[in-house]
């Protein structure tokens, strides 16, 4: 136990059951998993196997029906709403398949958003936002609106938004799903670069080429972990 609490993430028997029209869907049926700091994990599996559900629970967007979840040594499975928002804001950076930039806000304001929710001072925010935009190579577009950017550029801004607050872990659900292969490669390169810089990343993808970017690959099937390969590090 003491060992597991040192993991960044420790999942113990996580289950998720969806109830719709009196039909029970067992999306996750007992997930045990540890993610260490600095790991780059890819989660893959067939459609409907529970990848997004798992990511939602990891990101505290959803709570498990059963099981325990320690994040950074803290039990988080049953936190109340407002607390979850706080933890999410500090510990988690999200990258979405459909970018989810807010159309009425500029690139700069989009990246600034999680820092505002954290209650950070303007000066510090400016430094962080600029640094994050530099890092993804989008500083020159700070004043643009998302609709004025290409898909690849939008996703880079989304990555900047995810990392600006220096969260403990980046969670990405099919980050290249809405991109062509060239832009997809660029985003994957960006993630690898972030990983080299020390970021912990957990990415859902069903593309084996992208899964290969990660140094650990978890396979889900029918709500269970069926394979967990750590790529041998040279």
């Amino acid at each position, binding site marked *: 136990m003491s060992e597991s609490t040192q993991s960044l993430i420790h999942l113990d028997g996580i289950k998720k059951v969806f109830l719709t029209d009196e039909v029970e869907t067992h999306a996750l049926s007992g997930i045990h998993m540890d993610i260490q700091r600095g790991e780059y994990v890819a989660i893959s599996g067939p459609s409907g196997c529970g990848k*997004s559900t798992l*990511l*939602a629970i990891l*990101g505290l*967007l*959803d709570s498990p029906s059963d099981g325990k979840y320690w994040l950074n040594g803290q039990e988080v499975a049953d936190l109340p*709403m*407002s607390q979850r*928002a*706080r933890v*999410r*804001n*500090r510990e*988690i950076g*999200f990258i*979405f*398949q*459909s970018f*989810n930039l*807010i*159309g*009425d806000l500029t690139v700069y304001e989009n990246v600034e*958003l*999680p820092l505002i*929710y*954290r209650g950070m001072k303007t000066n510090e925010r400016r430094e962080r936002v600029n640094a994050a935009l530099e890092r993804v190579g989008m500083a020159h577009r700070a004043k643009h*609106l998302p*609709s004025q950017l290409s898909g690849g550029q939008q996703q880079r801004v989304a990555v900047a*938004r995810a990392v600006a607050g220096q969260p403990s872990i980046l969670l990405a*659900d*099919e980050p290249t*799903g*809405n991109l062509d292969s060239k832009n997809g490669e660029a985003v994957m390169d960006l993630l690898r670069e972030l990983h080299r810089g020390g970021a912990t990343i957990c990415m859902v993808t069903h593309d084996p080429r992208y899964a290969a970017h990660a140094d650990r690959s978890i396979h889900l099937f029918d709500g269970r972990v069926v394979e967990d390969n750590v790529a041998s590090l040279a």
Partner: protein
Amino acid sequence: MTGVLDDLRHGVRALARAPGFCALAIATLALGIGATSAMFSVVYGVLLRPLPFTAPESLVRVWHTAAGNGQRGALSPAVYLDMQREARSLQAAAGYTSVRAAVSADGDPVRLIGLEVTANFFDVLGAQAAIGRVFSAASDRPGDALVVLADGAWRQQFGADASIVGRTIRIDGQAYQVAGIMPRDFAYSETARFWRLAPQVVPTSPMQVEGDLLTLRGLGYMDVVARMAPGITTSQAAADLRVLAATLGARHPDDDAGRGFEVEPVYSTIVGNVRQSLLVLFGAVGAVLLIACTNIASLLLARAVGRRRELAVRRALGAGPWRIGRQLLVESVALAAAGGALGVVVASWALDALRTLLPASIPRLGAIQLDATAVAFAAGVSLFVGLAFGTAPAWTSAASASFEALRDGGRTSTGGRQRLRRGLVVGQVALAAVLLAAAGVLGASLARLQQVDVGFRPEGVVTQQIALPQSRFDRAAQARFYQSITERLAADPRVVAAGTVFPAPFVSSQASATIRLDRPAPGDPPDREYTVRLGSITPGFFAAMGIPMLAGRSFVPTDFPDTAQAIIVNQAFATRLLGGGDVIGRTLNFDGPYQVVGVVADARAARVDQAAEPIAYLPHTHLTLPFVRLVVRGHAGDAATREAMAAALRAEAPDLAFDAPETLTALVAGSTAEPRFRSGLVAGFAAVALGLAALGLYGLVSYSVMGRTREIATRLALGATPASMRAGVLREGLTLTVVGLLVGLGAALAFGRVLQSLLYETAASDPRVLGVLALVMLAVGALACYLPARRAMHIDPVIALRAD
């Protein structure tokens, strides 16, 4: 044109696919257009429809004004005849008096209100009979016993029998030949049911007159309507009559010095009082329509956003922006047409409701109907609404239905349209605020009016008009009748006190006289004459009314003989004319000296909103009139009081018919009927407006939350708290409310001047009313936003993970 028909077919199909939207839009429009058309019918019937006379713009009413206070009054026979002869600016002037008389053909007599008119009455008005003929100065001599019946009286009392023309009917027992029946829309005055030819060149005096009636100058009792000479304006006529008044004043200094004439267009006399009121109501209902339309425009805008893809596909297939705009416009006009058609039905219901609500004091009520003009109005409004409120959505959609909508799946910001919708909602809230402000101040004014201490206790008092035929009751008999009926009633165990009075309380009639005081009021020259109101009462009057004696005593039988000199004044008289203090024993001079024996408290005489004027009361024997009001206070309930009155009248005058008794409470309430109607209706409109504005706000905010679902989910994923999302939505809605409220308050202040003349002791910008209004609107705004705000709070952040 075929293009438009195609558009129409497409449009109807597209609308049929959204039945909920359609039903809501059509119902809203039908209510708005219906209410507006009904109100328009009232405004048209009362204010706009031409008066039923030939060239009504050259018809004027003429009054003789008093020396001193300039108060308008009726003309005396001699002054009327002088004017008739000498006023160059008037082509002809007709005189008339109002009479109540028992009218019968074969059956029981019915008491009707009518006019006794000079022979030229219908010539002056330029009115013709529908059946038979009217009388005319050219063919009929004064004294011919002729009567013309109103359409209503002919139908109700004579069964619409055309053969009545030429036959003889009885009016107060005297035979009159029916000359003709007037058309249905003819009315002069509002209440007259018959017009009988005067027996002399002027109508009969209501009081017994000794000597030649035609030379009587001192007693004014004739109403006069005149037709101005061709090309003469009202102000030219007024100037001409001013010269005539000076001439008459020089010729008859005793009677006419200092007096003048007042001229007013007949139209103003008839509708002058209600014009403002009706226009305010029309404005209010128009504002409601505008708010309703804004809701539709907002719905259309939201719908256009939802159809961006469809429109973009149409554009991609080669439709120009004009085509697309036209398509949407045709749809909205089709909606408006359906709403308008249904609106006419709603209008006919609303008009029925309005007819029962409209106070009887509103003139020309009979002229109100849902006719071709009103239907044309409804159609015009519908078309306007369709075009005006379809244009904005059509315009913005046509302009933005570009390929962008196809590329990004219609998810780019819809900022422009949201801004327009926000503008619309602000406008709605502002309009609702104006209406609420109006309802608030009208309500506050009404509340003040109803709190007014009228100076007497109306509860438990029943009154009845007594009119004695002069042919059977001379002055002495009249006075005896009043004394014996009140004494008989006072002896009845069901009765507390009984009296007679002229003028009747809360009925607009009055008597006045010119007097000199023993000492003039402070600052006035010693010989100053005062025109004051006179009352004629029996001793029990003050007790029956519940008007307290402040000093001295009421009348006693020893005050009755002609040699006695007792007079009672009210407090306004005592303080304003007699300088206050102990006024018992002071002397007033008219037709001889009178000593003040009592002072009574002030009481409102004709209307709740008119403060008491100085009045002096004489015993009924000193000022004797053939018509008085019997005032009886009972303590066994109004029904018992009525029975006691009926029994007493039967005993005293078994063969006379009298008007039905009325409670004093009803008479008093009648004088506030119009403000009650006005403020009730405006309050109703304001409530509807507030509801519609709240609906508009709710629609906008819900729609905005719905459209921002993904955005809110994303914000939640980034660490925003659900409570902050709720707060954000509430803030958005309340900001719109506050902006609308501020605009509305500004408009209400500007608009206040229009209302001021309708208010009683209330400022149109009463800060308490506006404060309450602001609170109500904020509360309603918060309520309207609460549900969408809650929905925003409960949005599942997992949505952010989903691909489209």
